[in-house]
C-alpha cells in the first residue's frame, strides 16, 4: 500500500514537474525577457547614414536591456529583404526591426508582389522620430520662398529641372508640381550628394532631398532650404516653413519605429515600448535626432499602428500619382 502511495506520489510529482516544464518557460519568457542576445535588423548596408541611426539606437538599448545587441545588415530591394526577413522570424522579441515605418508602408506599393502583407505581419512596438524631406535651391539663386520659386519655374516651363534621389523625394516633387501647376523635368540621382554639383552649376533648378544632406549643405551656405514636407513645423528647425504653409498641400512625414513580427507576446511588446519611450525621451536622443533634421516621436502603440495603416493606404495614392514603376 505504501509502495503504491509512493509510486502515486512520484507520478503526481512527475505530472507536476511536467506541467511546470510546459507552463514555466512561457511565464518565464515574459518575465525574464530578455534572457538572451537581441538582434536588430538594419535594412541599409553598412556605411549609409541610416545605418548610423540604427546603430545609435542599438547602442542606447544595450545598457537598458542589459544584453548584447547585434546589428545585422540585410540590405537590398529597397528594404524589402529586411522586411520579409523580420516578418518571417520568430515573434519572441529577439528580432527587432529598426527602420522607417513609412518606408515599410511604401514597400507595399513599390512592388508588384510584396512578399508579405506588412499591415498584418508587422507590429509597431514603439515610434522613434518624425522627419521631413526638404525643398532646396542653390544658395546663390534669388529664390527665398516657395512662392518665388514657383513663379520662376512657371515662367521657365518645361525647361526647368529638379533633382530627386529617393522615392520620397520623387513623390514630394510630383506633389509640388501638381499643386503648383509646374511642368519641370525630374532628374534622378543615386544619392543626394551626387546631385550637388549639378545643383550648384544651375543645371537643375531645385531639389527634393533628405534632411541630413540638405542641412549639411545649408550649413555650408551652398544650398538654401525653402520648406519642409511635414504637415507641421519641426522642433529641430522651428524657423523652416512647411510646404503646407507655402500653399502646397502636403504632409509627407518619414517616421522611424521599432517593429516586430505580429504575434509577439503582449508582455514583450510592453517591455519594448517602455524601453524605447525611455530612450527616445532622453535629451541625448533628442539632440542626436535633431542633428538628422527630425524630432523624437513618442506615441502609444495604438496610435503608432494606426499611423502605420494610414501610411499603407496613402502611399498607394502617392505611388500612382508619381507614376513610380512597380517592381
Amino acid at each position, binding site marked *: 500500500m505504501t509502495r503504491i502511495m509512493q509510486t502515486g506520489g512520484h507520478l503526481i510529482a512527475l505530472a507536476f514537474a511536467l506541467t511546470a516544464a510546459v507552463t514555466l518557460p512561457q511565464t518565464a519568457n515574459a518575465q525574464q525577457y530578455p534572457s538572451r542576445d537581441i538582434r536588430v535588423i538594419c535594412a541599409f*548596408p*553598412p*556605411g*549609409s*547614414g541610416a*545605418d*548610423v541611426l540604427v*546603430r*545609435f539606437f*542599438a*547602442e542606447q538599448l544595450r545598457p537598458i536591456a542589459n544584453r548584447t545587441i547585434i*546589428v*545585422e*545588415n*540585410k*540590405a*537590398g*530591394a*529597397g528594404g*524589402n*529583404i529586411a522586411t520579409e526577413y523580420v516578418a518571417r522570424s520568430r515573434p519572441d522579441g529577439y528580432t527587432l526591426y529598426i527602420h522607417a515605418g513609412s518606408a515599410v508602408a511604401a514597400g507595399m506599393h513599390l512592388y508588384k508582389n510584396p*512578399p508579405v502583407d506588412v499591415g498584418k505581419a508587422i507590429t509597431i512596438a514603439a515610434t522613434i522620430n518624425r522627419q521631413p524631406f526638404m525643398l532646396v535651391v542653390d544658395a546663390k539663386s534669388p529664390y527665398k520662398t516657395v512662392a518665388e520659386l514657383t513663379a520662376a519655374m512657371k515662367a521657365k516651363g518645361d*525647361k526647368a*529641372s529638379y533633382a530627386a534621389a529617393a*522615392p520620397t523625394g*520623387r513623390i514630394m516633387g510630383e506633389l509640388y508640381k501638381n499643386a503648383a501647376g509646374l511642368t519641370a*523635368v525630374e*532628374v*534622378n*540621382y*543615386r544619392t543626394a*550628394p*551626387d546631385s*550637388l*554639383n*549639378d545643383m*550648384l*552649376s544651375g*543645371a*537643375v533648378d531645385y531639389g527634393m532631398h533628405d534632411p*541630413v544632406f540638405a542641412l*549639411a*549643405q545649408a*550649413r*555650408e551656405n*551652398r544650398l538654401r532650404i525653402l520648406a519642409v514636407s511635414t504637415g507641421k513645423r519641426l522642433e529641430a528647425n522651428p524657423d523652416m516653413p512647411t510646404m503646407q504653409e507655402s500653399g502646397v498641400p502636403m504632409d509627407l512625414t518619414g517616421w522611424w519605429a521599432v517593429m516586430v513580427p505580429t504575434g509577439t507576446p503582449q508582455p514583450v511588446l510592453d517591455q519594448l515600448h517602455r524601453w524605447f519611450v525611455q530612450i527616445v525621451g532622453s535629451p541625448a536622443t533628442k*539632440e*542626436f535626432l535633431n*542633428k*538628422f533634421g527630425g524630432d523624437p516621436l513618442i506615441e502609444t502603440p495604438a496610435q503608432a499602428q494606426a499611423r502605420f495603416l494610414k501610411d499603407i493606404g496613402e502611399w498607394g495614392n502617392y505611388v500612382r500619382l508619381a507614376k*513610380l*514603376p512597380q*517592381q
Partner: protein
Amino acid sequence: MDLFANLATGFAAAASWQNVGFALTGCLLGTLIGVLPGIGPIPTIAMLLPITYGLDPLSSLIMLAGIYYGAQYGGSTTSILVNMPGEASSIVTCIDGHQMALQGRAGAALAVAALGSFVAGCVGTVFVAAFGPLLAALAQQFNSPDYFSLMVLGLVMAVILAHGSVINAVAMVLIGLLLGLVGTDVNSGVVRYTFGISAIWDGIDFLPLVIGMFGIVEIIRNLERGDVQRSAVGARFADLWPKPGDLREAWRPVLRGTGLGSILGILPGGGAVLAAFASYSLEKKIAADPSRFGRGAMEGVAGPESANNAAAQTSFIPLLTLGLPSNAVMALMMGAMMIQGIAPGSAVMEKRPDLFWGMVASMWIGNAMLLVINLPLIGIWVKLLSLPYRLLYPAILMFCVIGVYSANTDPANLVMTAVFGLFGYILLKFGCEPAPLVLGFILGPLMEENLRRSLVLSRGNPMIFIERPISAILLLMTLSAVILIIVPQLRRSREKAFQE
C-alpha cells in the same frame, strides 16, 4: 607660414599617448582586415562605430581613419601573395604583383608596395593639408556630362590593362558593363536583368564578383597545377628585399602614381580604383618595353599601389571641406562625426582646427607606423608561401566565405561567388583576363547613369558633352588613348605580315 602653424597644432593634438595608441590600434586592425580576403574596412568600421561613442572625437576619427588606410596597405599583401584583391583598388596589384611572387620576388613586391604606399601616403597628406579646399573646388566643377566623359576615358584605359589580345579585353569590358547593369536603374527606377531574384535587385555585389573571379579561380588554377610548382616558388624566398636596381626602377612610378592618386582621389565614387587603373595604364604606356607588364613588372606594382594609397588620403578632402562623403567609408566617417556632435564640412577647419589638423597629422604618424608594421611582416608573409598549398587553400577559402557572407549575411552571395568562380575559370581557359571586366563592372553603371542624366538635362542634345570644357578635354584624351591602342596594333599586324 600658416600651414606650418596649423600642422604644429595638429601634431600637438595627434601626438598624445592616447591618440598615438588609437592610431596604432587602427593601423593594426586595418592591416589585419586588409590581409583577410573579403573582410573590408566598411563592415569593420561599422562594427566599431558604437565603441567610438565614448571616445574623444579626435581619437575615434584617428582610429577609424587608421583602419581605412591600413586596409589599403594590407590589401596589397593578399593580391601579391595569393592573387586575391582584398579591396577594389588592389585588383591592379594582382596583375604584376602576383607574377612577381611566382618568380620568387614576393619580398621585393611587398616591400615596394609598402614603400610606395608610404611615400604616397605622406605626399597625399601634404595635398590634404596644403590644397584641400582648392582641390575640393576643382572636384565641384564636375557635372554629370564630365563624369560621363571621365568614365569613358577610364573604360578605354581598361583595355590597355590587358596584356593579351585587345579584342578579348574589349569583350571583357563589355561583359563587365552588362553585369553592372543588373539591378534597379537609377534614372527610371525599373529593375533590369534580375530574373525575379530579389537578392540582385540592388545590383550584383562587388565582393562575390571579385572573390569568385580572382580568389576562387586562383585556387582552382593552383590545384590544377599541383604542389610541385608552388614549392619551387617557396624555395626561392631568399631574396626578401628589393635590390637597389628595383628601387631605382620604382621611384618614378611611385611619384607618378602618387600624383594621379592625389587628384583622382577627390572625385566621388571610384576614385581610388580609377587611380590605380590609371596609374597602371600610364606606366604601361610610357614603359620602354610594355610587354613586361603582366609578367611581373615592378612598375606595375609600384605605380598603382602608390596611387590607391594617395587616393585614400585625398578622399578625405570632400568630407572635411565640403561635408560630402565620396565613398561608403567616408559616409561612415561622416556618421561618426555627427554622433560626436561635429557637423562635417568647412566649419570643422574653422571651429575645430585641432580636430582637422590633428587628423591630418595623424595620417603621417599612421603611415610611418604602417611602414614599421609591414616591413618586418614581409618575411612572415613570404614564409607563408612555402606552406604546402593543400594546407593553405582551405584557409583562404574559409576566409573568402566568411568575408562574402558577413558583408550582408546573405547566402545568395555565396551562390554567386561560386557561379563567378566557375565563370572566371571558363574565361581563364579562353585566355581572357578578369581585370578589365571588373573595371567595366564598376565604371559602366556610373557611365550609363551620367550619360542618361546628361541627356535628360540637355533634353536629348548630345552637344552637352562637347560644350562643357572639362568633358570636351576628357573626350579628347579618350580619343588619343584610342589612337594609342590602335596604332601599335596595326603596326604589329603589319610586322607580322612582313615576317611571314
